[in-house]
């Protein structure tokens, strides 16, 4: 794994000797592929130039890393449990961050002020119980760590934390299952089951399998107060509010999820990608809404706007090589589809969806285009690392919004980003694009991607953060949309919590925290 970027060490975008972009490694379908127009795209879109390269440090400088301060008595107790641990600088830094832009930026150019003092690797529920007990005994702070893919500063250590911070890494607890859970968040390769539960994660194929709250049957969590779990694994209970809902989305503030029973499904017999081109974004959204209304959404259905479509063309030449009669290439947009199930049903389902699309002026654009679209999802995170090398920073935001406001939200947020960049002195118009990424009965989930060339700006992260705040404000206050339908709040956006759920709502959550963890052992300061 990379220490200062996304994913595997061998997988990344590079510019080869001919100056053409190439994706290295063999893990992805894109691997080894040369992308001849990519350079042009990056130059055209951001005004970036290959001559102007930033320099990231090649490796971690151990001397910069804050020292590990751990009480000797605790170490003795810990050794007695035989749980493996490490005070090594690299291990600690790796668990000090998620993948927020500013975190990656810090890794490349500086150092975190506060990182875990020690990393522990429990391998079973009992190990976790022991660690939590020790933490209570010695008054330590525990920060659970899953896959480290958070994009909300959830893993950042609170700077003012004086106690020893223990990073409790649960990633090794995830056994190879061999079943299909159907839960496929974009970070699937790297994130963990406990992480999914603790963050109320959403998966790409939620239309078939559901989001995590629909998948979970039983959860066991270790808290400073003791172990919380249900005494049965029944499909539904009416014993007051569902305690699972205190756990899902608690973001590591209450305890460590050690066991999760989750629904599994047979591996689908048949999978088919697809894509539809619409004359414009409005028609595309209308089609998705109709699909949602008829409740016939395929495993995944996504609608990318024109800018992202252009990006698709430019980055992977041949994407949509078809010519579409009467469609303005600067307005049209594309929906990508993924069907799963048994063959006959898939074909039937496919026909139904394409029939609806036709009513909204959509034209089928083939399986390949659909598949490439999904492939992009998995490599887009690698793309940011490349951008960083050339003064381009980027980030994604997401939100969910009622159907009647989808179009307005997309337009307003994109416009606001462009405007805000201009006001903040960004010299080249930013890339500001969106994708309707999930459909629900009552609305949709929208992802915004936003990137800009920061040459000439002294403090790009600050500019970026201002724009981010603006975004959140726009969404929370005006659009009738909600933050974080799929991602979590972490620390990054917790100040909007009150407005989102009211004072009393916040108080309810606080009182749970106070009861479960009165000494704030799980002190990552997320959420509340």
């Amino acid at each position, binding site marked *: 794994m990379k220490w200062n970027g996304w994913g595997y060490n061998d997988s990344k975008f590079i510019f080869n000797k001919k100056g053409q972009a190439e994706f290295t490694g063999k893990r992805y379908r894109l691997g080894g592929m040369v992308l001849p127009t990519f350079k042009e795209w990056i130059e055209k879109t951001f005004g970036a130039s290959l001559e102007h390269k930033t320099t990231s440090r090649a490796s971690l400088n151990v001397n910069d890393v804050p020292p590990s301060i751990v009480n000797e008595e605790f170490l003795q107790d810990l050794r007695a449990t035989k749980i493996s641990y490490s005070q090594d600088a690299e291990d600690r830094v790796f668990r000090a961050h998620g993948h927020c832009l500013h975190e990656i930026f810090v890794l490349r150019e500086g150092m975190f002020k506060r990182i875990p003092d020690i990393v522990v690797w429990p391998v079973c529920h009992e190990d976790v119980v022991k660690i939590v007990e020790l933490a209570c005994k010695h008054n330590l702070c525990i920060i659970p760590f899953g896959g480290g893919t958070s994009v909300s500063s959830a893993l950042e250590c609170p700077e003012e934390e004086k106690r020893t911070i223990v990073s409790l890494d649960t990633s090794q607890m995830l056994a190879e299952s061999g079943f299909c859970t159907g839960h496929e968040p974009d970070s699937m390769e790297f994130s963990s089951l406990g992480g999914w539960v603790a963050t109320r994660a959403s998966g790409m194929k939620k239309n078939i399998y559901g989001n995590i709250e629909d998948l979970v049957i039983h959860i066991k969590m270790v808290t400073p107060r003791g172990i919380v779990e249900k005494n049965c694994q029944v499909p539904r209970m009416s014993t007051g509010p569902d305690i699972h809902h205190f756990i899902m989305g608690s973001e590591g503030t209450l305890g460590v999820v050690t066991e999760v029973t989750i629904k599994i499904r047979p591996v689908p017999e048949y999978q088919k990608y697809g894509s539809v081109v619409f004359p414009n974004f409005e028609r595309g959204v209308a089609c998705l809404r109709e699909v949602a209304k008829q409740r016939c959404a395929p495993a995944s259905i996504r609608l990318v706007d024109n800018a992202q479509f252009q990006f698709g063309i430019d980055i992977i030449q041949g994407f949509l090589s078809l010519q579409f009669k009467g469609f303005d290439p600067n307005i049209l947009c594309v929906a990508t589809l993924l069907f799963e199930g048994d063959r006959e049903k898939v074909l039937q389902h496919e026909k139904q969806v394409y029939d609806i699309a036709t009513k909204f002026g959509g034209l089928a654009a083939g399986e390949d285009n659909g598949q490439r679209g999904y492939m992009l999802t998995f490599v887009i995170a690698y793309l940011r690392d490349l951008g960083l090398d050339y003064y381009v920073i980027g980030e994604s935001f997401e939100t969910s919004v009622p159907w009647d*406001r989808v179009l307005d939200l997309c337009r*307003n947020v994109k416009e606001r980003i462009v405007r805000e960049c201009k006001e903040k002195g960004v010299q080249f118009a930013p890339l500001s694009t969106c994708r309707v990424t999930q459909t629900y009965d009552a609305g949709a989930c929208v992802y915004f991607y936003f990137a800009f060339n920061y040459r000439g700006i002294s403090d790009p992260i600050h500019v970026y953060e201002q724009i981010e705040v603006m975004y959140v404000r726009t969404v929370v206050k005006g659009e009738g949309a909600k933050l974080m339908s799929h991602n979590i709040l972490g620390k990054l956006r917790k100040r909007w919590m009150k407005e989102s759920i009211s004072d009393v709502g916040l108080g309810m959550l606080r009182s749970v925290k106070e009861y479960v963890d009165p000494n704030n052992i799980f002190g990552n300061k997320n959420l509340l």
Partner: protein
Amino acid sequence: LFLASSSNKYAVSHSLFVCSQQKELMSKKRDEFEDILEERRLSSDLRYAMKCYTPVIYKGLSPCKPNAIKSAVLQSEQVQYVIKQLAKEMGESPDIIQEEATEILDEMGHSMQLGAVRFFAFTLSKIFKQLFQRVCVNEEGMQRLQHAIQEHPVVLLPSHRSYVDFLMLSYLLYTYDLALPVIAAGIDFLGMKIVGELLRRAGAFFMRRSFGGNRLYWAVFAEYVKTMLRSGYAPIEFFLEGTRSRTAKTLTPKFGLLSIVMEPFFKREVFDTYLVPISISYERILEESLYAYELLGVPKPKESTSGLLKARRILSDNFGTIHIYVGQPVSLRTLASGRINRCPYNLVPRHLPQKPSEDIQEFVSDVAYKMELLQIENMVLSPWVLVAAVLLQNLPAMDFELLIEKTLWLKGLTQTFGGFIEWPDNLCAKKAVVSGLTLHSNIARLVDGHVVLNDKGVEDGAVGEIVFKRALAILMCATYRNQLLNVFVRPSLVAVALQMTRSFRKEEVYSCFSFLRDVFSDEFIFFPGISLKDFEEGCFLLTKCDAIQTSQQEIYPTDKGSVIVSFLSTMFRPFVEGYQLIFRYLSKETKEVFTEKQFIPGVRNFVFQLLEKGNTQCYEALSSDMQKNALAALVQLGYNHGKLSWQLMALSYSLMPLFRKLIG
């Protein structure tokens, strides 16, 4: 009562005094004007009308035909919802109500056509050249407008003094190759054969005068306007004042249409909306005598085509210069930032009709006042306006030389107060006055070195007729003086308050000022709720022209300031006296309930009799405008003090001593 309650307020916010007024008033810099008729006089009108017209339009516009808008409105969730609701309530079939909605739309909708636009471009060129010497426009304003139109939906908010307003504005946009506006016009225009339909084709859409109770009409109308706004179809134009001001004084704003055009922003259906205040000033108003008759109770002729044809004799008359100042587009987003919490809109599906919250209503009202104040700020004042103001204080006759001297003096004072006077640098005062008198020879004339009002036939008529003729002349003249009033009102009310309280204590003067401001709240335009700031501005302006000196606690008129103070208070005296007469009438009114229709003739007769007997000289109290404003102010005051409206008489009675004190 009033003194006690407002003095507290004063004490609390005293520290705000002497704040940043100065900067605001000094930094007013205005654009230069260009005469658009000049070009018209030099080249062919036909070619101009047939020119290649490719207007600048909104960047997000997907072009559509007027009929497509209508069907979009009809099919919209908003209108369909109301149709279903009404069908359920009335037990009718939705089809019948839908039919009704279609009829409403057909009555309302414009059908803008380039042909009609070209026809207007041609005929209006001819007519305008005939009527006006010059039509002056600030070109920078047009450029700003051009940018605004491309960026966001635009709402044009012109002042309304004449029917010429909207014709002129469309003409102007055509000339500058900008998207032609759709204009909210009164339904009465449809009564005019051919002309109504012609206006429709030039982009007018028609609204009924009152439709508050008709939910279907309201839904269709609101959706029609919003659909055009959201799609950026065309700039939307309407008059905040609701109707033509018969007195040339800005009327208090109406909020209905403004809140409709603001709603898409509140609901975030548009990113932003530009509001563009436009000030249209006439050196001589086309309808001046009609207005005077109307104010005196001779009803306004119904709009009719034959009436229009009869009116064409005015074509031989000269109406001087028009100034159109297109103000800085105001971003609604900026106005609302930090002020409006749009969350309440989040919890209701957007197509459901939603009554705006109190916050929103207050905001709409504030925006309306702000826009009107911006209009006022950029109204061009001609020298004649100054002449009229001086003349009205020196009736029946004034020495010509003195008039010139006083006019020049008033020019300086007006400029100090931030008034926008169009007075060419090289034009001497005498010429300016003479040219004003020539243009307005129907109002005043020069006789034996004296300027007198042109109330012909006064000598030989019956008493009643003399009063009427005189009232006509005075009201016409007042129409011009009135253009100064909103610029002068703050310092003048301080001056009036100074005279009235006969005290130097700032607190007392402020209480009195604040009371006057409340009483005259329908007469002049005050931004709601900033009495103290208005007072400070008034004091600041008076200090600036050396009329007063202020200390922490006190206000002193200076020696040389007495001329200014007395001029200012005399300027507003017709209002003080007029209100007194009206209140006197009301305090004698014995009926518990009366309508405005009964009130106006009653008070008019009352004042008329007093004038006939020579018991008052306040001709302006005959103006139905003043009578309505006084009544409205009283109702508002009564409401503020928790009294029922039928106790107005008691209230007006209680106000009498205060006013008597004023007149001294």
